[in-house]
């Protein structure tokens, strides 16, 4: 049985470490915040200018001047700080963020990612995604292993315009986990979701990965 979205987020959360500064993308990655182990000091960055993102506000706490990168109302924590967008991306581009967890339309076997543009469709823009994948120390792509037509999204080479080149270090899908150490070219299968067979994941993976 493949992982649910929440289980995928929980699996990605296992990569968090005490003291980490983390940027979570919009969509499934947002759910990772719910799985930060108790007692672990993880600081969430929001690229619109905040470190130490708190939970959503109660109705009384809503402040239009306080939103996250998904434009949702949020709150502060005692450790929070605000800064401008140039400083925020200095943090990102300068390699100060330990981990970015982001969604993907496609990831290639050499760690390229495409997640911002489908040619022929109205393009909304890359926002901060290109900066994140180029700058953050470690990037985890979190996405459904196949698209709605069952076609693999973890593939030999991206067909969509890239967000970044050779920048994904770990892939977490509904079927399993792949990673590669710094400097390693190829991904290796690390984990299968419960009741997912090697045959199944191999059949659904176009990327050339190390299976053993």
């Amino acid at each position, binding site marked *: 049985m493949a992982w649910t979205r929440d289980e995928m987020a929980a699996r990605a959360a296992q990569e968090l470490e005490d003291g980490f500064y983390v940027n979570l993308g919009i969509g499934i990655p947002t759910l990772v915040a719910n799985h930060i182990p108790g007692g672990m000091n993880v600081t969430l960055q*929001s*690229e*619109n*200018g*905040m470190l130490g993102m708190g*939970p*959503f*506000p*109660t*109705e*009384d706490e*809503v*402040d*239009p*001047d*306080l*939103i*996250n*990168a*998904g*434009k*949702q*109302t*949020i709150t*502060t924590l005692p450790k929070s700080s*605000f*800064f*401008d*967008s*140039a400083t*925020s*991306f*200095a943090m*990102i*581009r300068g390699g100060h963020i330990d981990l970015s967890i982001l969604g993907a339309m496609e990831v290639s076997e050499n760690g*390229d990612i495409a997640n911002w*543009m489908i040619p022929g469709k*109205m*393009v*909304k*823009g*890359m*926002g*901060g*995604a*290109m*900066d994140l994948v*180029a*700058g953050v120390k470690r990037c985890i792509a979190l996405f459904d292993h196949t698209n709605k037509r069952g076609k693999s999204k973890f593939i030999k080479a991206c067909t969509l*315009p*890239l*967000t*970044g*080149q*050779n920048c994904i270090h770990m892939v977490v899908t509904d079927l399993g986990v792949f990673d590669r150490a710094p400097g390693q070219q190829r991904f290796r299968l690390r984990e299968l979701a419960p009741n997912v067979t090697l045959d199944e994941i191999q059949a659904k993976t176009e990327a050339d990965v190390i299976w053993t």
Partner: protein
Amino acid sequence: MSKVYPTATSALEGLCVNGLTVMSGGFGLCGIPENLIAALRDSGAQNLTVISNNAGVDGFGLGQLLETKQITKMVSSYVGENKEFERQYLGGELELEFNPQGTLAERIRAGGSGIPGFYTKTGVGTLIGEGKEHKEFNGETYILETGLKADLAIIKAWKGDAEGNLIYKATARNFSPMMAMAGKITVAEVDEIVPVGSLDPNFIHTTGIFVQRIVEAKCEKRIEQRTVREA
């Protein structure tokens, strides 16, 4: 020569000419200069190039300038929330230049800081890198991005004084401090004008040197994604 203007309209007087390049602060609808955008629309200035992270929503923020077709070109990182934008863009009426958000922020800071170009890894190997100069530093490849300036920057702050010193609130700060630096003329609208000397000099976000005009104006502060939890 006072920097303080009584209304948003008066604060833009003499500045709104056709063909202007305008920077407009804000992330989504958070920290946008609502009143100055409306005053710019009312000025009727045409053929504007607008540099702003986003393009507002239908009928609000920069959406107001799109409705009236005063904008010819947008420089943004994300424009997803606006049907009128989509219609004009797909119809070829509107030019659009995407910048990665951090590149956009840094280009604006560079423009205001006398830096005509800088190198970044962001966008290497993507459409964003195409046609740009590539250069190696310590064995890694970077692309050259240029500084951005504007004829006019309109920004929103929390409090300001008659010297143009500003402070921002929470994440409403975003792009405004850099835009204040990059505007040939910078006009700030603030929730409150406070007496000179009441802002702590240790904690001024934008110093008055970057602000030529200031106006106190009431903002609606519309929320795009009101998200709440149970109390």
